[in-house]
């Protein structure tokens, strides 16, 4: 009797599973192997057939890619990656998120650890020697955060007289950029491994300013408007792109088309408003896709 009952339960369960699989909606319309047609041999076709994709993003960047309690990264980069993945005909839950901190981003693309990287990834020529960029999908810029009552720092030129101290993250692009403006690296530049420490040093008065991309600074200001403000306007242009393998021109132009489409149908703006836009950062008009 017991065995029969177990068998019956199993049969019902299997039936129910089968039914949900038929009627269920797994991550949006138009997904599944062969749901979209791509030219044979392209990366898009391979990914669509495999029905899974690995995406590199940051896990520690508020507003762009931040892995919180949910266990999944959230942010603008993540939303952009989801738009691309959906266009490939792969459901959202088949994305494997891989942490891609700044210093390994090229390496994970070259080694094939991930299929694409969306990680506040500034497009520049040095990086183009090893990988290729689709996009840009956003243009950030370096800015300076100071204490609310500070009027002595108005822009990067304020560091030229050699008295003001400025903090950024070891080995980041903004840290190298600000070196051009300071008089003496040894007495003016303070590197930490995270921006949180820079913020603490600014708050306790050890440094006079923190510099990095405006969106990151705006995240801190949004949390503590009584203490901090931006000094002046952006003094660099940091176009964020999607990193792919250097030789994969088809995949790159596919992503470019997808980004154009996302801007046109409003999903690009929606992604922003739900993520980094909450910090009060300006989205601006869509940057022109650079099809090189």
């Amino acid at each position, binding site marked *: 009797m017991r065995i029969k009952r177990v068998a019956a339960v199993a049969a019902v369960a299997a039936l129910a599973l089968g039914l949900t699989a038929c009627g269920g909606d797994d991550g949006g319309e138009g997904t599944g192997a062969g749901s979209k047609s791509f030219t044979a041999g392209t990366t898009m076709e391979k990914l669509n057939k495999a029905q899974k994709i690995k995406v590199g993003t940051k896990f520690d960047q508020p507003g762009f890619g931040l892995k919180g309690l949910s266990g999944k990264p959230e942010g603008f980069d993540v939303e952009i990656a989801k738009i691309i993945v959906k266009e490939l005909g792969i459901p959202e839950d088949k994305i494997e998120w891989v942490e891609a901190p*700044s*210093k*390994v981003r*090229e*390496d994970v693309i*070259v080694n094939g650890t991930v299929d694409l990287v969306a990680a506040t990834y500034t497009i*520049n020529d*040095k*990086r183009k*020697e*090893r990988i290729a960029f689709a996009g840009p999908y956003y243009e950030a810029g370096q800015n300076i955060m100071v204490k609310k009552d500070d009027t002595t720092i108005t822009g990067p030129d304020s560091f030229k007289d050699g008295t003001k*101290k400025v*903090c950024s993250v*070891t*080995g*980041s*692009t903004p*840290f*190298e950029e600000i070196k051009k403006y300071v008089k003496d*690296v*040894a*007495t*003016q*530049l*303070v*590197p*930490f*491994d995270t921006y949180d*420490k820079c913020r*603490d*040093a600014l708050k*306790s*008065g*050890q440094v006079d300013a923190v510099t990095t991309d405006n969106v990151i600074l705006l995240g801190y200001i949004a949390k503590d408007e009584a203490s901090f403000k931006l000094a002046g306007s952006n003094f660099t242009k940091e176009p964020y792109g999607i990193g792919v393998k250097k030789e994969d021109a088809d995949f790159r132009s596919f992503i470019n088309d997808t980004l154009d489409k996302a801007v046109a149908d409003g999903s690009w703006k929606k992604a922003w408003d739900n993520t980094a836009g909450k910090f009060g950062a300006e989205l601006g008009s869509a940057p022109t896709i650079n099809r090189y």
Partner: protein
Amino acid sequence: MNVLIDKFDVFAGGFWLTLQICILAAIGALVLGAIVAVLRISPVPPLRALGTGYVNVFRNMPLTVVMFFAAFGLPALGSNADFLRIPVLDSLFTRLGTDLPYFRFALIALVLYTAAFVCEALRSGVNAVPAGQAEAARSLGLTFGQNLRYVVLPQSWKASIVPLGSVIIAMIKNSALAGFFGVAGDLSATADQLTGAEGYAFVPVAIGISIGYLIMTVPLGALLDRIEKRQAVAR
């Protein structure tokens, strides 16, 4: 591998700064470690307890935490470690005298942490000297200080030198943390600069950094081997 040639100046600058940190921290740690070791073997119980307490605290705390306390705790207490702006030294080691305190903070953390290990290395050497030596010295009427200076330390030094060398080598490698606590441009931070901001491949840069550390540690290890061999002959 071109990065090693193209960016030689960056590597060399990082190497020089790390060497400065290491020389200063080694001097500081040896001096402080010796003081703590004397406390730990002194005949006065409260001093012994003080020495033991010091070793227990700093040997058992991760260096990152010590660094954190130095870089964020000292400013909160209102100190910029200005006592380390030693007149002659700061012209030799320019970072010591700057307005930015982080070089000094990193130094303090490294010295405090390493001194605990130096103390234990010295103490193990003292323990290797047969008890009869110290007893004989005491029966000759030597004071505690004379006993240490003329009888125990000259003998214990031989047993301590190799473990001491290991401690200093470990300290050189530990100094890599300084670049993440506000010291601009040390050897390990140059790796982040070259890979993160300038987009060089990770492996060649890591090889360059490793060579830099090996230049400091390998000769030190070879020197220790030599000293050890000489002493074996002397005995």
